């Protein structure tokens, strides 16, 4: 089947927060993924699918079922570890791996290879979705409808970056480090607290209010449907620039610094919000560092912390009924503004 040219990421109108959150995760896969909350028809899945096309190809070990990175042996699968060097490399783009809500557990974690067992009388592991997702984007649409036991296995892998299988006569462990991207419509119920907390960032999106922008959304969509390839060509320059900017930010991420003031401010925000545990603080600083890298700065500034707070906090504040949580975020922004923070 011929793959239809995907809608270009840069052609998505508005939804800046969502785009920012996705881009930051591409730069720094350790941020912990994005949960996108919003109504239907707000380009959620379009954006996720389009994202992978922005990045240039990257190296994988040829024939490896987990797309191991040839240059980083600390996360190799057992096969790559045991294999004789030199390894052949293969260049491929990052992929978006789908986890459908209706998936069965054996397809998700992997299972015993039936054919091999019957033909050869040997047990062999048949990798599942969590294997495919290694070094890729794991995309779960309507993640709040995912069955409890699937959420459990997802939690296990997301926490450790490893999928451990002890089932159906199979005992096997393989790397499963993925960028978790979930979407949900909050009207259809909430996520379990444990899974919610695993998401580094959360964005709430709404359809555009502005008439002019709404018209632009429709125009672009029609132009794309009409001739996907011609449409994609229109944006190829912009796409390439974004890709290079992300690659550049990736390279510079390690050298971005943060001041004591920045760290204290982050801790102060968390204390004042009375968040559970420490994940909020850690994610905020990581996000701020990544955001600084993306905008080309050397160190974390006020605006990076503000951006990080907007993305990392909404799902970690204790919610009060009949209470607008937006008010709290507003307070935080004021706190950041007023802080005696030295901006370069």
């Amino acid at each position, binding site marked *: 089947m011929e793959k239809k040219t995907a809608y270009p990421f840069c052609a998505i109108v508005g939804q800046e927060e969502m785009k920012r959150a996705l881009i930051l995760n591409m730069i720094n896969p350790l941020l912990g993924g994005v949960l996108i909350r919003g109504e239907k028809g707000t380009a959620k899945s379009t954006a996720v699918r389009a994202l992978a096309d922005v990045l240039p190809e990257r190296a994988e070990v040829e024939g490896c079922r987990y797309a191991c990175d040839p240059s980083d042996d600390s996360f190799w699968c057992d096969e790559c570890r045991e294999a004789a060097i030199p390894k052949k490399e293969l260049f491929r783009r990052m992929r978006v791996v789908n986890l459908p809500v209706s998936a069965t557990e054996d397809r998700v974690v992997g299972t015993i290879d039936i054919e091999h067992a019957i033909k050869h009388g040997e047990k062999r592991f048949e990798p599942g979705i969590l294997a495919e997702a290694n070094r890729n984007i794991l995309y779960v649409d309507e993640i709040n409808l995912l*069955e409890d036991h699937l959420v459990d296995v997802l939690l296990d892998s997301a926490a450790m970056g490893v999928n451990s299988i002890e089932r159906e006569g199979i005992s096997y462990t393989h790397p499963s480090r993925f960028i978790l991207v979930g979407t949900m419509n909050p009207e259809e119920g909430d996520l379990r607290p444990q899974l919610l907390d695993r998401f580094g960032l959360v964005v709430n999106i709404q359809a555009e209010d502005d008439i002019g922008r709404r018209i632009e959304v429709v125009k672009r969509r029609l132009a794309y449907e009409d001739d996907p390839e011609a449409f994609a060509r229109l944006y190829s320059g912009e796409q390439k620039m974004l890709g290079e900017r992300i690659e550049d930010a990736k390279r510079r991420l390690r050298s971005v610094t943060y001041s004591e003031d920045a760290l204290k401010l982050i801790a102060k925000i968390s204390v004042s919000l009375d968040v559970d545990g420490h994940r909020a603080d*850690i994610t905020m600083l990581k996000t701020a560092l990544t955001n600084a890298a993306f905008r080309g700065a050397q160190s974390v500034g006020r605006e990076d912390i503000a951006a990080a707070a907007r993305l990392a906090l909404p799902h970690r504040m204790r919610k009060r009924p009949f209470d607008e949580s937006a008010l709290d975020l507003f307070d935080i922004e004021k706190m950041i503004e007023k802080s005696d923070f030295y901006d370069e």
Partner: protein
Amino acid sequence: MMNDSFYPFSAVVGQEDIKLALVLNLINPAIGGVLISGEKGTAKSTLVRALSRLKPDTRVVSIPLGITEDRLTGGLSIESAIKKGIREFEKGLLYAADGGILYIDEVNLLSAHIVNILLTVSSMGENIVEREGISFSHSSRFALIGSMNPEEGQLKPSFLDKFGLYVEAKGEKNTEDRAEVVRRRIEYESSPRDFIEKYEAEEALLRKRIESAVRALGEIRLSEPQYALCADIAREGRCAGHRCEIVLAETARAHAAWNLKSSVDDGDIKLAARFALPHRMRALPELRPEPEESGAADASGADQNNAQDTPADLPENGDIDLNGDSGKEDTSEIGEKPNLSISSDFRIKKLLLGSGKRNKAKTSSRSGRYVKARIPVKKTNDIALDATLRAAALYQRSRERDGNAIAVRQSDIREKVREKRTGVTILFVVDASGSMGSMRRMRAVKGAVMALLDEAYQKRDRVGIIAFRDKGGETLLNITRSVDLAEKELRVLSTGGKTPLAAGLLHACQLLTTEKLKDPDALQYLVLISDGKANVPLMSSDARKDSSAAAERLRTLGIQSMVLDTEKGFIEYGFAKELAGLMGSTYVKLDAISKSEITSNIKEMIKIQR
């Protein structure tokens, strides 16, 4: 795989209780492990994973949540049977864990069947496998370590008891410490190897100290009076069985060894009690305040009750220091039985517990977690391949194989037994409008919800609340089984305004329909608490006509329901009764609007229809 890149134990900021409990278990495995319960993101599992580096000869075997029975207990080796034609036992994780630590992250999510196996094996210290033509047994003694977030549900008491100790994880509250947590984490992530290297000296010190404590342990014994003290503590805590005394004694010994002392003092026992008792203490009837049953006092009563019982305020004092010796805190002479009482001297608070057994229903659909296999009763499309192969493997020598390695016949087919958390979903739809006594009504409902959730651990019941007032229906509490979550979400209740009954009912339809998609096996109940006097229309201009229409919709969706009529006053309109007729629901006129009145009516309904 990747063990070498774990975050180092000594680099974790704070969490002294957890560290101490874990270290004591390394020193003396006879303590039997520890359950770490607490809020998310508090280094619970990080600390456990780091253990293997502190005592290199200790194996830490992790059980993934998706484990199936055959891999836990072990079973017939398919390969040996087919290739060599011999029956050979393939060892499972219980074998690997013998003499070491068995670790389960998110232990409260483990399947009931797997929990039962763990219970049996850990009380016998032996794993006995009798199936698939295999008869095999081996020793399986392990310290059980679990971590969990209580927001996702509790453990049943018999399982709790298998964990030697219990500790609470909490985030650091002061800014300096929080900043340090972040600083170290970022440093670690930017270069795990350098970070681990940096803490190696500290880790080595810790290793050495544990090593010498292990050597010292053999010489350390409790005196007769100290044994008696342990027994006293266990009795006063009304702990079932004798495990509590044993754990107290073993923990006290380990703590003495850790502090390089040659004998146990009362400080050691005191510390042991703090860790060994919380999850074992049973209700002290005379201490438990009878909850008041009416009006506003009801809700506050429930609140207090909770505050007292919540594990969150357990060990608050930070006076246990990993490096310090705790001899300072108690000076009673050894040899003489000190007069300590757990209520005043130990400041131990009982854990909030469900009492019965948690029910995970076997499900007939293909969804749910595969836990074991069985011979199918009728035709199945959910074949358990591994079990089928094991069944077939035994007969391969006598079968025609057609070029395949194995021939499978109809009689070998096994099907999967799946397990799924099911239970009853109860959705309250409550009138929070301005009519008299609505705040009282809301508080009573909150009390009822907390009471139902309290028992939800045994039945896997889930509860939600929709309130309607003013402009529409609002989900106050999304359908949940978490007491903690309910407590958090229901802290503030608002009332007042008009009565949009129809909006409330339709909101409920919507919520229950989506819930049905997620959990088709659960039984759903809707409980409407109102006097039925709607005054905000939804679709037409007639509020009562709209609520009648909404009521009929509920009926066509086949949702079981109950109407608790709160109508008061001289002239009775009977609107709620009329609605009950349209919904096809059980109708009860409430004599008093109280927590107990609501809960008892609901329990009655569920009991009849279950």
